[in-house]
């Protein structure tokens, strides 16, 4: 088995595991015992694949971005996850998890959200299947991602503000976990990233793996080879990166580039670059790299992008960083904003702020003309327009 799959206890090397209070044990254990069987079940697969095609709109295109290619001096392909229903890759996971929740007999769905994309994707599938949906969102994030709050409400979800701590993704996740503790039998928690206790990181990675499965096929059709020189993706918790990397993990010829949010810069106290600033620690049930002070208190991250504003990373990514299988870069708020404008003007595609970090990384990768790069354009930028107009002084 690949070293990039977790062992029976949910560890990728020294990272992962399931550090959960006893109150969550039955729920997590039930999921751990059943998720692989359910995912492998032909009936599940039939339904999942049908929804991915007819509801999500997969496969998403692999687009050769000619003008970005000229700009960066290499061949750049964009994997257009921004064209998924709801506007980001997040729905790949929620479609799978809602089918899983149904098979576990759950009636009530909870989720956390940062940028709101996972919240919208969860509210969407709950509407589709007629299940109650409660989304926890940091009060600060509700303010900076208003369009997504409105979309969730339109879809019939209840959005509950998380008002503790920095009032962002970490705190929303705390509140979702507390809800799950308080509702131990009828509720399924749809985690939106490759974080949390085992088996969530593996479950979400498997459901996002469709991204790299498609990239391999599409790249072969376009270039004759399934293997690019680079796969580039942004990392907050790391679900779109996990999906884009998944079928390349055991291909050492393919360089994997994970792009974190530097915020104001990794040498300031306003950053979310976990692989640079983090040390091993426990967050949300997982042992991973974690931004914390010398006393083990979790520190408040900063990124202009709500989806990258998280003090940890998924345990798979911690392992990829530790083992140097992936190269980790960090991009400042400023450079991400510039990259968003560049992509909008050169390709007519307004990227999400999260994905803009990955685009900005192309500038610092020392690309050569012969290089083939696949960049996972994880989401579209509609939700970020207010920020773009303000920060780029376009209003």
């Amino acid at each position, binding site marked *: 088995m690949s070293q990039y799959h977790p062992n029976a206890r949910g560890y990728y090397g020294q990272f992962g595991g399931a550090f959960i*209070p*006893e109150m969550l044990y039955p729920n997590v254990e039930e999921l751990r015992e059943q998720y692989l069987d359910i995912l492998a079940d032909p009936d599940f697969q039939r339904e999942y694949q049908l929804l991915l095609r007819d509801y999500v709109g997969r496969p998403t295109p692999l687009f050769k971005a000619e003008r970005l290619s000229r700009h960066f001096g290499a061949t750049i392909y964009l994997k257009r996850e921004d064209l998924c229903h709801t506007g980001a890759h997040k729905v790949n996971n929620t479609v799978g998890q809602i089918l899983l929740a149904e098979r576990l007999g759950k009636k009530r769905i909870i989720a956390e959200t940062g940028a709101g994309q996972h919240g919208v994707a969860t509210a969407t599938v709950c509407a589709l299947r007629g299940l109650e949906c409660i989304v926890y969102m940091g009060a600060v994030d509700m303010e900076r991602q208003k369009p997504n709050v409105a979309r969730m409400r339109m879809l019939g979800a209840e959005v509950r503000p998380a008002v*503790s701590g920095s009032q962002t993704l970490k705190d929303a996740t705390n509140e979702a976990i507390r809800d799950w*503790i308080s509702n131990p*039998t009828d509720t399924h928690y749809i985690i939106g990233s490759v974080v949390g206790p085992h088996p969530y990181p593996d479950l979400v990675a498997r459901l996002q793996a469709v991204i790299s499965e498609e990239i391999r096929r599409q790249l072969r059709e376009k270039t004759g080879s399934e293997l690019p020189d680079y796969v580039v993706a942004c990392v907050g918790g790391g679900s779109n990166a996990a999906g884009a990397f998944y079928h390349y993990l055991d291909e050492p010829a393919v360089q994997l580039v994970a792009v974190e949010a530097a915020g104001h810069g990794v040498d300031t106290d306003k950053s979310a670059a976990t692989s640079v600033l983090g040390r091993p620690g426990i967050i949300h049930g997982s042992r991973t790299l974690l931004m914390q002070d010398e006393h*083990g208190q979790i520190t408040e991250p900063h990124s202009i992008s709500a989806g990258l504003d998280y003090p940890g990373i998924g345990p798979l990514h911690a392992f990829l960083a530790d083992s140097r299988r992936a190269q980790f870069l960090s991009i400042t708020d400023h450079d991400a904003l510039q990259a968003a404008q560049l992509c909008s003007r050169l390709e007519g595609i307004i990227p999400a702020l999260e994905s803009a970090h990955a685009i900005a990384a192309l500038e610092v990768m020392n690309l050569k003309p012969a290089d083939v790069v696949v960049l996972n354009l994880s989401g579209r930028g509609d939700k970020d327009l207010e920020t773009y107009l303000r920060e780029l002084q376009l209003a």
Partner: protein
Amino acid sequence: MQNRFADLLARKPQGLLNLYLTAGYPGRHDTVPLLQTLADAGADILEIGVPFSDPLADGPVIQQTSTTALRNGMTLKALLQELQGIRQVLPDTPLLLMGYLNPVLQLGMEEFCRQASEAGIDGVILPDLPAEEYADFYQDTFRRYNLRPVFLITPQTSEARIRRLDELTDAFLYLVSGPGLTGGNQTADQGAQQAYLQRVAALNLRNPRLVGFGIADKASFDQACRHAHGAIIGSALLRALDGAADPHAAARQFVHSIRPAQTSTSAIS
């Protein structure tokens, strides 16, 4: 090896009152004096909460006291140092440290156990340290330092698992009263709670059983004690301390509201 839990149970087999206090709350230097006041007023076991930025299993009250304590500058290192003299004032009361795993791991489990043991701490509650991880990685360290783990049990915990947890300790078992967080209202379904406590009582476990989460006053304390050896109160005590002009008077008054003053132990304070 001394076991203050067993000693206590031999003296007093029923109605044990276990009180939880967030270290560094309400004031940075209140912890040891308040523990002494609580014991003098009649608490049988004391749980010292190590404040953490992200206390996942705790409700709003302990989230708030933890935040206040951290703002007051309380740290695990400082707490362990402060506790070094505590056995001079509280020789017999079983003392526990209750906190989350991350601050402990940053100090180092070995170092944590060494200092806790030197201070005379008897037990440790780390709700996000699963029993399996404890058994595989930390049991030897705990034993070497004569520290006892306390595991949580919920109405959903299977009998097989309860028995496994019972084997792993000789302090007590922490019976979470129902679904929810600390400080919640668990009295909604008294019937289900009593049935659960009776079911666990009938397992004839090695360890005494204390009920926690949502125990807030004399009525819920007495109710919980019907099918257990005692109960644990945290949030309600912290609420009583909140904004009190004299936290010691408030603490004494709170204990006496659960358990009327016992002249033999409370006269001196």
